């Protein structure tokens, strides 16, 4: 019987591991993913609020151990302000075959921001998947932590050719910029959860 005590103790210890889990609050009104294509006199952007995902880590402190995340965006939902342009964009990105872009990885660095106590800077490192192509990228992220929820902001750029996307024509024969700026803003609700099997 004595031989079982360590195993049971380990088991109880493991079942009371603290963990943090945030989910994208899909009901938040200000969720917004924006891409901007800058071409001289033909700059345009596309927006969507259809973003989903989570951040999960082990430990009591913020992103203490094994902080992992997945963020997904429904590509067909981007609105550029012109229906035909939305339709052309869906064709170019192949949204019927690859309906979502996803970013999956880990929080590899994080530190409180010097300007505000509730603000944290982090580096999200992972695999960005778009148009059936996966690439490793790092994205700097700002995280504002509040009671019950957090607000995530991130900005990065991507090149269409890196994802085998042929830059479409925007007006007659003027092509969309190869480089696209992406801005992400969304709210994550804190999931009240203690890893406890009791």
């Amino acid at each position, binding site marked *: 019987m004595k031989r079982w005590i360590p*195993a*049971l103790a*380990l*088991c109880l210890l*493991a*079942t009371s*591991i603290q*963990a943090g*889990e945030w*989910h994208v609050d899909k009901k938040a009104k200000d969720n917004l993913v924006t891409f901007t294509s800058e071409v001289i006199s033909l700059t345009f952007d596309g927006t969507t609020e*259809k973003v*989903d*995902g*989570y951040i*999960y880590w*082990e430990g009591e402190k913020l992103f203490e151990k094994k902080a*992992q995340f*997945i963020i*997904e965006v*429904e590509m*067909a*939902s981007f609105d550029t302000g*012109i*229906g*035909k*342009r*939305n*339709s*052309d964009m*869906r*064709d170019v990105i192949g*949204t*019927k075959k690859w*309906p*979502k872009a996803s970013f999956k990885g880990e929080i590899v660095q994080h530190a409180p921001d010097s300007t505000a106590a509730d603000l944290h800077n982090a580096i999200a490192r992972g695999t960005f998947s778009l148009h059936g192509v996966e690439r490793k990228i790092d994205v700097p992220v700002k995280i504002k932590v509040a009671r019950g929820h957090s607000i995530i902001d991130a900005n990065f750029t991507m090149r269409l050719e890196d994802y085998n996307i042929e830059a*479409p*024509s*925007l*007006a*007659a*024969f*003027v092509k969309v910029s190869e480089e696209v700026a992406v801005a992400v803003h969304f709210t994550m609700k804190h*999931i009240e*959860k203690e*890893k406890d*099997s009791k």
Partner: protein
Amino acid sequence: MKNILTTALLLPTLALAQPSWQSTESTTEEPVELFRATMTPNFPTTTMLYKGDWHYEISHRFHPTIDEGYDANFGFDGPASMRTAVGYGVSDNLSLTLGRSNLLDNLDLQIKYRLWDAEHSTLPSAVAMRFGLAWNTDIPTIIDRGKTDGANFQYYAQLVYNTLLFDGKLGVGIVPSYLYNSAIFSVDKQYTFTLGNYYQYYFNDLWGLWLEYNPALSGYQGILLPGESGHSYDSLSFGTSIETGGHAFYIFATNNTRLNPAQFLVGAPTSASPKNWHIAFGITRHL
């Protein structure tokens, strides 16, 4: 035995050490768009304007034939029949278009509605309806009739079926069309029923070749204007298409210089023999 018990005890714990978030299916609905443009030069497709989108069309049919050669600049010297039109997407399934042709100053109001579509691996399909009201506002002085006389109005209905074959390379359209009051200068009201059909082959996202044919199955296929003689003929048009950046460019040859549907559906002024081909173009732009 010990290993089994340990595993049994730890398994629930390990299972719980995972995020509870689950990915969901995409909820964004995408319409079935078989043709990239909302129209071919003379017929509607089932592709619709999206809600709030504006659409502009300008089309020319040059009167001299290509056969007249250099002296008429192969037709480009003109004159030409012209149509300009502006369309608006009331919803993703309903659009309105107001157009005008310089032939009898024919004003043309169209309503297009998408009835049905279906994704299918080999035979994707879509059906739309188009109704039109045409008002001929330039009545020759030899006709004793006011502009607003009921006889100057024409009505038409078109059922549009589209499919896309051979891995998206060949678009096919069938457009049975009914025109009422085909001959506005006729004493008796006439009708024309045609079975329009068109085929567009896409070489790539930019270039395509297309052909339209509009045989009259029954009804009137006579003259259109006072002073004309003979009758009208089935329309044949063929040419190239360039689709890019919200534009569609059609450059083609046709035996039919009539543009607005209430005039085009009656038929072509001449037969479709090569000596009767006219150079023509149509340009559309999503605004």
